[in-house]
């Protein structure tokens, strides 16, 4: 039982970390801080504009694979994975 509870709180911590990054790259960099970031340029892009139209999307993709990978490890560590079902 506590095995499951540990697993769940580890999962919640991981989700909190990922969603914090998710929030920062889109809502903070792409919207809230877009004006100051636009003073920095990335090639022909203004940086805030780049986060809003390109950068946030790349980070989202990486985040999901990072989460899937870490959860795969957590499943095994806490012995709740599906492979033992068979």
């Amino acid at each position, binding site marked *: 039982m506590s095995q499951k509870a540990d697993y769940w709180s580890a999962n919640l911590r991981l989700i909190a970390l990922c969603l914090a990054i998710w929030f920062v790259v889109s809502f903070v960099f792409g919207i809230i801080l*877009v004006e100051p970031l636009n003073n920095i340029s990335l090639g022909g892009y203004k940086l805030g504009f780049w986060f809003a139209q390109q950068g*946030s999307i790349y980070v989202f993709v990486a985040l999901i694979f990072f989460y*899937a990978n870490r959860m795969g490890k957590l499943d095994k560590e806490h*012995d709740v994975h599906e492979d033992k079902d068979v």
Partner: protein
Amino acid sequence: MSLQAMTYLVVGMTFALYIGIAIWSRASTTKDFYVAGSHVHPVANGMATAADWMSAASFISMAGLIAFMGYGGSVFLMGWTGGYVLLAMLLAPYLRKFGKFTVPEFIGDRYYSKTARIVAVICLIVASVTYVIGQMKGIGVAFSRFLEVDYNVGLVIGMGIVFVYAVLGGMKGITYTQIAQYCVLILAYTIPAIFISLTLTGVPLPQLGLGATMSGSEVFLLDRLDQVLSDLGFSDYTTTARLSHLNMFVYTFSLMIGTAGLPHVIIRFFTVPKVKDARSSAGWALVFIAILYTTAPGVAAMARLNLIETVNKPDGTQLVYAERPTWMQKWEETGLLAFEDKNGDGRIVYSADAEVNEMVKVDRDIMVLANPEIAGLPNWVIALVAAGGLAAALSTAAGLLLAISSAISHDLLKGVFKPDVTEQQELLASRIAMAFAILLAGYLGFNPPDFAAGTVALAFGLAASSIFPALMMGIFNKRMNKEGAIAGMVAGLGVTLLYVFQHKGIMFIASTSYLGDMSPNWFLGIEPNAFGAIGALINFGVAYVVSHMTAAPPEHIQHIVEDIRVPHGAGEAISH
């Protein structure tokens, strides 16, 4: 070969391919019809989800809207991709573990209540039908151009094709055809984008071309665009927000949680073999989606620049109306592009000033389809874009119609009203429901509430305010009971619908709006398309308060919640 003949050929060939696959893998049992037997590989499922997801809104409409909104259009880019992060972490793996066919089925079981299930069905139908209206708009635009008929005629033809298409196959047919559709639509989107990026900047990838300098010049493309826009009196492309930063924040949030709450996307994650695969499937889906979504900003900015330079030539002269290119004439026939020679000089003046502007109507939804013609690309590329646009619209329409029909036949008929229904009757009921949904959405598509992507954004708001909170609390809050969930869904959907109908008209019939679609009437300046996030907050709040005033859910429900939180013990999706 003429453009029209080429278009018939390419569209015809792609259709033959989809229908061939649909017949080859035709659904035979009810279970195949809904979830394709849970044997779809994560990469394949990701690709099919991407095709299912990227509709007329993403393909036909979005870049056109961004072209005219500039930075403000970022809400679509972030909103429609960021939702997958929520989906992968907050919903997909747990719903897969729960192992049911439909979203209302999960809500009905988790909240031990047929009422909850019926409320979920209503939420699902309202959101999905609104979504289909957006698809109908896109299909109507595409058909009107390539058959060279009025938009309304194009819409009727589109309705017929969607019906034949959706009835032919179930999810299994749709899963394999959707992989084919993904390939067609992504080629159709990226090939012209690469051509145009090469012509303008010499850089083939539009993701890099957008940040590069113009060919034969030291000026960055985006700076150039800002410059020509401000010369015409428009605001800057790269910095102009959509209404306000608050509105953009709320709009993006609404699209994100709507993404994670749309039943036709969630249902995809029931078809993967394992919980583990549900997580990576969401990642693969987003990879395939991101290919289009990171290309779209380039398409948007380059299309706007090409459009302006067609009308206001770089040498400083304005386009003579009688000498306008063929693509303008063809789009004028559809009624989606219109000019009015206000000063009588026979030339087209394009300006931010409505008094002197002579390009009086540019439907945003024509931009992507017209883009290769504006850039003067070969006919086969233009034909391919038409095929891609139709693939996007048809695949999503089919996925949504499947979600609507399964909600009615599986959740309402079999789950609530007539549990002893036979498989044949269930299939028949689902087909009748599909036909009815197409007629309703098609009818409302004659006067859509917004451009295709805007209409779809409304659908997301409705899903965000009703379904997402109920699903999330069902997994993350053991204490959430049926009273809380039902009250939350009703309050969230109710408030959002009231706000939307108030501005857009009851059932989007504009003449019935009670305050008019006027921005001074908007709450905190938030446009109706973005209001789903506020509806979702209300949903969470009401659910929390009501659940704490009523009895905790029964013991066995709390065990179910504990059980769906761990992957171990996941079987195949089963029907009760």
